């Protein structure tokens, strides 16, 4: 066992820390509570922040250099995420482009597609959203019904996507569409579509936070050049699975850093509010303990990556751990803070260290997106425990 970062990884981390000290003027929490910001200006802020990171060479860390990456590994990527969280840096704007589509193009795309799409993706000139879920296809993604019919050198898309994260802010969408109605998995293709193409309608959906980070996208006889097909016809499911493995990634350490910062703020708030009785201490203690366990799992995942092994079902374990903990954490935070914890961030008297109300609401999303907790448990039951499958 050796849980210490290698000298090279330590060097990478220290350089990143120095860069953050020099370039991160305000924490994300400070940006959020600046009354001059609205939802749009926050998005534009994230675009500028992404460009700074890109120019410094911190995006596409584990991509080959020829595609604008750094040629590093998943370890540097996990360290990057962990340090960004520890510094409370804003998220980049093009999370889905860089997090999901980039790897898909690198693994499955054509040279022309990489050349065309990766540079503006990294520079935040083109923002991407993910067209996977549909009204009738969520956890059971393979039952998706949006169709793509080949007509000459174009696909014609018809259907509807929903819970499309960044839909209202994006320029492009990557779509899973059905090219063969008879083949459940092999009849799905992966297609790139510009959102201003005639026949595409994007409607923002208001979330329980009041924000509209996601939306729904309608396709009505939308003509997309055949050149926008990634991989071969019928390879969409396989590509999506590659992409989703990246999405789950190694985020345990980053999450532990993020929650650790907020836990420190909660502990300070408890002290200030006189919430130091035994019951409150026990509640706070359980949160601190669970976050340390999450940190340990994150360190283990990092070590797995450093050994050159690809995380398999471990990412399902990690996803359940952080997302379920987030809900317990935010719920307990409101217990400890009392009704003031529900105040919106600009309300008079609202505490400023963390937007407790927003975090409470957001914690409800983590166990649903990117494979719900129930889907993760299915994955564990099948691939790790190898339990007999229920033959419906």
């Amino acid at each position: 066992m050796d849980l210490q970062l290698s000298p090279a990884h330590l060097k990478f981390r220290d350089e990143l820390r120095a860069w953050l000290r020099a370039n991160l003027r305000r924490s994300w929490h400070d940006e959020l509570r600046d009354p001059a910001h609205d939802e749009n200006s926050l998005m534009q802020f994230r675009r500028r922040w992404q460009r700074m990171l890109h120019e410094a060479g911190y995006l596409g860390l584990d991509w080959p250099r020829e595609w604008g990456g750094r040629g590093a590994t998943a370890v540097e990527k996990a360290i990057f995420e962990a340090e960004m969280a520890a510094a409370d840096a804003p998220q980049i704007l093009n999370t889905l482009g860089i997090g999901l589509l980039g790897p898909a193009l690198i693994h499955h795309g054509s040279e022309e597609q990489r050349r065309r799409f990766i540079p503006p993706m990294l520079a935040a000139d083109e923002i991407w959203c993910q067209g996977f879920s549909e009204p009738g296809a969520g956890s059971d993604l393979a039952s998706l019904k949006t169709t793509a019919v080949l007509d000459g050198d174009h696909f014609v898309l018809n259907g509807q996507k929903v819970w499309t994260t960044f839909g209202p802010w994006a320029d492009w969408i990557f779509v899973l569409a059905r090219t063969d109605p008879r083949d459940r998995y092999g009849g799905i293709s992966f297609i790139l579509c510009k959102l201003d193409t005639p026949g595409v309608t994007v409607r923002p959906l208001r979330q329980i936070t009041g924000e509209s980070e996601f939306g729904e996208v309608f396709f009505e006889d939308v003509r997309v050049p055949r050149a926008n097909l990634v991989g071969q016809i019928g390879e969409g499911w396989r590509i999506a699975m590659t992409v989703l493995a990246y999405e789950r990634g190694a985020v345990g350490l980053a999450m532990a850093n993020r929650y650790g910062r907020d836990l420190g703020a909660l502990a300070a708030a408890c002290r200030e509010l006189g919430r130091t009785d035994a019951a409150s201490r026990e509640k706070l203690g359980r949160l601190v303990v669970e976050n340390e366990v999450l940190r340990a799992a994150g360190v283990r995942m990092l070590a797995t990556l450093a050994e050159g092994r690809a995380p398999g079902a471990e990412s399902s374990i990690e996803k359940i751990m952080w997302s379920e903990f987030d809900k317990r954490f935010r719920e307990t935070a409101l217990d400890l803070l009392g009704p003031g914890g529900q105040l919106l961030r600009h309300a008079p008297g609202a505490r400023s260290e963390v937007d407790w109300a927003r975090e409470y609401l957001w914690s409800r999303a983590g166990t649903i997106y990117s494979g719900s907790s129930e889907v993760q448990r299915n994955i564990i039951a099948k691939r790790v425990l190898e339990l007999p499958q229920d033959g419906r």
Partner: protein
Amino acid sequence: MRFALSEDQALLQRATREFFAAEFPMACNRRVMEADGPGFEPAGWARLAAMGYLGLTVPAARGGQGLGAVELAVVLEEAGRHGVPGPLLDVMLAAALLAAAPDDTGLLADVLAGRRLAVLARADALYAGAPGPAATFAGGRVRGTKYFVPFAGSADALLVTTAGEVVVAEGPFAAVPLPTFDPAQRFAQVDLDRAATRLGPLELLEPVDQLAAVGASAMLLGIMQTLLDTTIAYTRTRHAFGKPIAAFQALQHRMADMLVRTEATRAAVYRAAWCLDTRDPDAALACAAAKAWAGDAARLVAGEAIQMHGGIGFTWELDVHFHVKRVKTLEQHYGATSAQLERALVAAGY
């Protein structure tokens, strides 16, 4: 960077697994636990000593193996997994404490060789929240009453905590048995009024407490693994409504949660052990977190194991209850959860 065990550690794990499987099969463990005897078998105990397990973390210069907390966790995880009864953890901790002070009487050497048995006597009360008076040490005598002293009836020496220091009292002791529902453990009350020698200040206990947290958590981890394995095996063979009950999603998701807790415990235990061995600044927090978490996690795993076995899970015949009972002992001793939560908060600076 590597989470996996080193070659030597993996070798220790394999050897220990084979040793426990051969020397401590569950059928024999059951006989020892069910008997009215001392709660361990002298011949088996002698073999444990001969293998060098008792002084695993004791420096080589003091007659031990000079290994670290990671190796301790490896051995105790296997002990938990195989349901090995007896004072293994208790004596390992006593040896670690004895090794922290000069050994003028040869007690440490005797303990490591299995010639004498020493354990810690800590608890000043039977119930939480009602601490009795601490034992005192004055004029070369220790006076007071200690509760839940492990295997006191077999002990040749007790390492007794008093108001200000740790002292060594030599036996035999008039131990009043405190039978609990856990047959793997023999607890007793010991009334002390006898000559004793000072071992050192209470501060000696801090590293021992951290080792105890890692060791008990590692045993909990091993037990959780056994309970999960047993539950999976049972639900795969037990049929209801025309199929193995393991095919029902209601049970699959619960077994998935058992795995999540078990693997989270594994990460926490071995990280804590590594932090101890490398004197990492996170060590205190990691040890407290591992023990507090393992206690809670094992509760869930133990409860689910009984529930998913159904009626047979409530029988004495099945091994499950022995493991479940041990879980409770390990959770409430060796730094109970409430104490570990407070330690974690203090270590985190809160």
